[in-house]
């Protein structure tokens, strides 16, 4: 048997306690007004709209058309643009190209008392008004004024905009640019406008609703209805602008097919209730473990604390740069549940150790046998949970997550990005299983083997009741 050193227990225990504390509190420094987050804590968790209130809408084209992928992207881009102009930055927008749907979720703004979800939904779904205007004169609020107030060309005259990469003149080398194609009416108007402006050295601006999205100097008259917009574009900015122009050219309107709105009071109550339940459940589990398994119970409690810390870290994102996960009520339920399942792994091992001791094995032998013989049961049980978790994530996740891609032959027929709350249940279950192996098996094993080498802990009665020695 491989010997584990006596200090290992303290190292593992200290690591777990420090890790969990950090996972809860996070590490950040405040210098003046600027707070830099080094490690994210509980406070950085994004709560789903079922907890903090908000709106969840699924849009679908109002007329019976099958939009192309490009059009869907464009429609989603319009929604993003409008959410930002509504001052909502913490939104989620998914497209489901299979079914031609756009799913939008956004929370209540914090200072909001009288939020009107219906108005917001209608505004989001309305067709974007894309306009080409002369010059770029704006008033104090950024709205067009002066010559710019007149609309020269409308979005409906745009056939297509596309982000491309290549040379735009003989000397320019390869750059990102946007190619723009007008229909006959648009080409004529554009030709007139550019002919006039080229001689005046004027400029053209492109607007979406009341917001200027691009502004370019006219270098020459364009008469064939094919223009290019160049400038310091990156791949992303060129694609974004092309999407916005296409959005203005959409031949359909988006309509709310399904929506739900939750006021913040409802969610906050639910969150508090879940937190109380979680703390109570955890305390109860720890007490039970201590009563049932004594010394082993202490180790189990430490491992469980680590497991809770791991759950928190996996949800908050822990390291800056990793996005935090959107946490919903079923997600929290999944967390509490997976802790309960994590207890099972520990119970199996502890029971096995007890059993081997009853059969007359030495402490070392029993501990060794407890872990090796108990493992196959823990392994098989957890694999089946992985199966369930992956199916949940694949069936109810957005189209671009890996599980959805794997399972797309089965669920591809149905719409994607449908039920975020069930998805987060699957996520916490999956993380819970991984943590079971990490803390419930590995950390417990290291701590038990290390602790069992101390003279004080070599009494069988410390590993469970019922001994009359």
């Amino acid at each position, binding site marked *: 048997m491989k010997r584990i050193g006596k200090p290992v227990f303290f190292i593992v225990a200290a690591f777990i306690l420090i890790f969990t504390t950090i996972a809860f509190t996070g590490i950040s420094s405040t210098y003046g007004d600027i707070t830099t987050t080094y490690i994210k804590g509980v406070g950085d968790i994004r709560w789903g709209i*079922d907890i903090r209130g908000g709106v969840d809408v699924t849009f679908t084209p109002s007329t019976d058309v099958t939009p192309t992928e490009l059009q869907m992207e464009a429609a989603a881009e319009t929604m993003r643009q409008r959410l930002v102009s509504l001052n909502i930055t913490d939104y989620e927008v998914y497209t489901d190209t299979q079914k031609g749907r756009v799913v939008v979720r956004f929370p209540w703004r914090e200072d909001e008392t009288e939020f*009107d979800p*219906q108005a917001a*939904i*209608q505004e989001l779904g309305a067709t974007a008004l894309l306009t080409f205007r002369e010059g770029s004169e704006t008033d104090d609020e950024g709205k067009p004024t002066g010559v710019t107030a007149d609309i020269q060309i409308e979005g409906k005259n745009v056939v297509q905009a596309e982000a491309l990469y290549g040379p735009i003149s003989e000397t320019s080398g390869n750059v990102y640019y946007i190619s723009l194609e007008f229909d006959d009416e648009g080409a004529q108007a554009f030709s007139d406008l550019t002919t006039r402006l080229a001689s005046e050295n004027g400029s053209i601006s492109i607007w979406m609703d009341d917001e200027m999205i691009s502004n370019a100097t006219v270098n020459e008259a364009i008469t064939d209805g094919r223009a290019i917009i160049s400038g310091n574009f990156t791949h992303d900015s060129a694609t974004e602008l092309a999407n916005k122009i296409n959005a203005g050219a959409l031949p359909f309107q988006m309509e*709310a097919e*399904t*929506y*739900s*709105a*939750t*006021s913040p009071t*409802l969610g906050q*109550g*639910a969150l508090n*209730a*879940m937190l*109380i*339940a979680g703390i*109570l*459940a*955890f305390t109860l*589990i720890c007490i*039970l473990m201590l009563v049932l398994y004594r010394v082993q119970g202490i180790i189990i409690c430490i491992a469980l604390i680590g497991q809770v810390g791991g759950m928190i870290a996996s949800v908050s994102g822990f390291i800056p740069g990793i996005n935090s996960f959107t946490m919903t*009520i*079923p997600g929290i*339920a999944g967390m*509490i*549940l997976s802790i*309960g*399942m994590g*207890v099972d792994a520990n*119970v*199996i091992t502890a*029971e096995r150790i*007890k*059993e081997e001791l*009853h*059969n007359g094995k030495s402490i070392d032998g029993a501990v060794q046998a407890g872990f090796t*013989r108990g493992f196959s*049961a823990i392994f*098989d*049980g*957890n694999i*089946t949970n992985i*199966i*369930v978790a992956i*199916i*949940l994530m694949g*069936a*109810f996740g957005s189209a671009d997550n890996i599980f959805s891609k794997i399972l797309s032959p*089965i*669920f591809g027929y*149905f*719409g994607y990005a*449908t*039920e975020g*709350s069930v998805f987060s*249940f699957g996520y916490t*279950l999956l993380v819970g299983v991984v943590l079971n192996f990490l803390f419930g098996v590995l950390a417990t094993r290291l701590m038990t083997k290390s602790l069992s080498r101390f003279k004080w802990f070599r009494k069988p009665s410390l590993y469970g009741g019922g001994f009359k020695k």
Partner: protein
Amino acid sequence: MKLKEFNFIGARKIALSISAALIAIILIFALIFGVRLSVQFSGGTIITYTYEGEIDADSIQTEAQEVIGQNLSVNMKAGINGLDSFEIVLDEKEGLVSDVQAELDTALSEKFSENNVTFLSNSTVSPSIGSEFFIKSLVAIGFAAVLIVIYVAFRFKKISGWSAGMMALVALLHDVLIAFGVFVIFRIPLDFNFVAVVLTILGYSINDTIIIYDRMRENQRLYGSSMTREQLANRSINETLSRTLNTTITTILAIAMICIVAVVCNVESILSFSFPLLVGMLSGTYSTIFIVCPLWCMWQNHKDKKRPKQYAAKRR
């Protein structure tokens, strides 16, 4: 080591009859009273408002009907976060045009100005999307069950994997039906929580089954043909009994805690999730001991009767 071994396999007739009776009751209940689907699956609209003081359901109905111009029903509900609330459920499955909602808000708060009627939530689902998600959920559940059975069959070849897998499936069906029964009997509408509950119970119940299968696999190796199947199964159940009890008690206590808090704080969405889960988990533990193992023995014995020679050859 243990003074007394309980004869679980011996109690199979009683256990199987109880389960069959329970399932029959649930199915009859579902047939007579119907299964409620939430708007998430059936399509439709539920709008919830909170209010203070006393409000008469009939007058809400009259007022709302006037604004919306559709058939609707009103449910009064006691306190979420200490606030009483009522639901307006539109009978028509078309969903509500969103500007009508604004009108309704104004009309209700004007009519019941003393009651401080405040909009709480709205859930509108079109019927096509609703039924599509319901089917998707059923496919997810079925697919998970199939994969689990294949996994069990593969991992437990030693105790004749496919029968082990099929018997585990029977137990899963049993547990899912019991959980379904909770939804039906307590008139909880089926929604996405139901899907999450069913999948959790699948995972939990199969975990329980696997622990005992695992011990049967080990004992099969240890004792070989010196034990009859019934003895083997019984021994395995008894050896893992303290684990089964301890884990069940721990998990059940944790979920029960959630139920209690949900009741105390009056958070219905959590209660309609945790209570069926609680019952389903209890059923999962029960079905492993009293259904899976006896059925496995009966099925194996039945197979032997059909093919006595092969059996004899195998056992040698």
